[in-house]
């Protein structure tokens, strides 16, 4: 494996690890807010104990997740130095805001939430609980703004003088359609995970015949929260697909294993794609054993059942969009990219040689003209711009299939139909418990779709991975990869152990003994 591969693998490992903690933080934040709101409104100690229990689990998860994201920033500086330099002006702002605003908000109010029972008023404590969750959610917003810019770079202009992308519109970056879609969809997915966790843990208590009332109430609320989140995530998923179709058509084509596109495209439920090798998208029209829903992909991608959806070959060869505009072929984009690279080098040389301003301005304009395809200047083969289809394809199906499974879980646990609950109660409860690890797999699968689908781009169309990476030896990156693997696995084992112990201990009935 090359340095690029190890750098990608390392970033993926650390991002996957980080994402084990974030969704439960976001999801449990809402659950504990709801529970404490019920305490505030009813005054019943039962709801206080319930809220405190879920806050304890929130706290464990929050503590374990602390600093797992910082390592990603270290990797930017070491492994992805060219990328970091080129985008630092854009990336730096959302990350700085995240640190200054969101993290401080979160860390201030989480202290009141844990230490403030019986010390501050009920209203202030309740507000602190919700503000803790809001802080975490605002954090997510800014991180996702940064990631969204990688997928859909807007609000910037490249400066050949500084060789950097410089932000021209903060609002365009912060409120790009991709950022909004990604934020809504990601937060909702975290809420679903949080709901599955609550339902699963509650089911464990019911299985053990412990804290029955607590378990039933938590189960009910978790299932309602999960159903609402699931309904909303279907809408956000549709809108995300529409946005991806506009901004990253190759990602959608890879997700669907759509080799040759057209109008009235069906949505694939499953197909016979070899998970271990890139399929032959150049000579095959569609994967074998394809089972699909007629018209559904066209509808998802264009809001029109007859809409045109480009396949991989169409994107490589150039195609005409539904609105009549023409998308350049790969060859044309490569030519533009090479012009941009050459113009940049000529600009730098001319500046060093003290060329007149008019000449420099002309070269600068040439750079800007071809800049949107800068990254294509480094592409030599068609294969290089096609993401690894098996991962995109199967990860998408794991994500959607899992989402459907959770809707079934929430429906069953909420309504508890007698034919299931009386005869198959234990099986249903085990099903709920086993959905907890499945929820994590589904959550990670969503990110695999997002990040594998944008390959080979670190910045869509502007910078491929092999140009963004630092020129360092692969052995150095490999070493830290395995270091992380050992470190994170150990920490994860510690966290799971602490979490399981807290769940086994259960909600405390005696307020004085409540752990802080």
């Amino acid at each position, binding site marked *: 494996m090359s340095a690029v591969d190890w750098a990608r693998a390392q970033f993926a490992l650390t991002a996957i690890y980080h994402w084990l903690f974030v969704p439960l933080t976001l999801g449990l934040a809402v659950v504990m807010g709801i529970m404490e709101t019920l305490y505030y409104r009813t005054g019943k100690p039962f709801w206080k104990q319930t809220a405190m229990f879920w806050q304890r689990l929130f706290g464990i998860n929050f503590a374990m997740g602390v600093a797992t994201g910082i390592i990603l920033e270290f990797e930017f500086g070491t492994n992805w130095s060219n990328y970091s330099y080129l985008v630092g002006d854009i990336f730096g702002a959302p990350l700085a805001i995240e640190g200054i605003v969101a993290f401080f908000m979160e860390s201030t109010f989480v*202290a009141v939430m844990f230490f403030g029972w019986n010390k501050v008023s009920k209203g202030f404590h309740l507000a602190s609980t919700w503000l803790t969750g809001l802080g975490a959610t605002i954090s997510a917003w800014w991180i996702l703004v940064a990631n969204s810019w990688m997928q859909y770079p807007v609000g910037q202009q490249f400066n050949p003088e500084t*060789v950097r992308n410089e932000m021209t519109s903060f609002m365009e970056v912060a409120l790009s359609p991709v950022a909004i879609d990604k934020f809504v969809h990601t937060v909702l997915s975290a809420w679903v995970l949080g709901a599955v966790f609550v339902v699963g843990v509650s089911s464990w208590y019911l299985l053990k015949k412990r804290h029955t009332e607590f378990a039933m109430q938590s189960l009910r609320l978790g299932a309602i929260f999960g159903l609402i989140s699931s309904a909303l995530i279907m809408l956000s998923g549709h809108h995300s697909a529409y946005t991806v179709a506009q901004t990253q058509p190759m990602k959608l084509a890879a997700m669907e294993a759509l080799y040759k596109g057209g109008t009235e495209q069906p949505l694939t439920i499953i197909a016979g794609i070899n998970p271990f090798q890139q399929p032959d998208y150049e000579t095959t029209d569609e994967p074998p054993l394809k089972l699909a829903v007629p018209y559904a992909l066209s509808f998802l991608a264009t809001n029109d059942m007859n809409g045109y959806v480009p396949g991989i070959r169409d994107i490589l060869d150039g195609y005409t969009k539904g609105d009549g505009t023409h998308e350049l072929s790969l060859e044309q984009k490569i030519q533009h990219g090479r012009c941009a690279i050459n113009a940049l*080098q000529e600009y730098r040389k001319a500046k060093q040689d003290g060329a007149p301003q008019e000449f420099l301005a002309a070269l600068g304009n040439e750079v800007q003209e071809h800049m949107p395809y800068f990254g294509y200047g480094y592409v*030599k083969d068609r294969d290089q711009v096609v993401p690894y289809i098996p991962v995109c394809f199967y990860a998408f199906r794991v994500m959607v299939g899992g989402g459907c499974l959770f809707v079934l879980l929430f429906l069953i646990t909420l309504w508890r139909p007698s034919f299931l609950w009386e005869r198959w109660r234990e099986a249903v409860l085990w099903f709920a418990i086993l959905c907890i690890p499945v929820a994590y797999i589904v959550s990670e699968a969503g990110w695999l779709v997002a990040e594998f689908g944008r390959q080979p781009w670190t910045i869509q169309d502007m910078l491929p991975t092999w140009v963004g990476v630092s020129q360092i030896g692969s052995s150095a990156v490999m070493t*830290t990869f395995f270091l992380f693997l050992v470190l994170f696995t150990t920490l994860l084992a510690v966290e799971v152990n*602490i979490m399981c112990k*807290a769940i086994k201990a259960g909600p405390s009935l005696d307020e004085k003994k409540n*752990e802080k």
Partner: protein
Amino acid sequence: MKFLKQAWSLYYDGFRSMTIGRVLWAVIFVKLFIIFVVLNVFFFPDYLKKHAADDKAEFVSSQLAKPPITHNP
């Protein structure tokens, strides 16, 4: 002044009465030590600071001009 005293009391009493919180804080400190003292210092040098402290723009520009390693995703 009263507010400061109350805030101090909140944190002081809170930290003193922690039980599982002590374990969590210990894990956090160990993790932060490993991340900032060990990993950041020995394994994650700032590449550009090390190789191009004087003129990062020129260094990155020269990197962009180099023929890239052919790579497939």
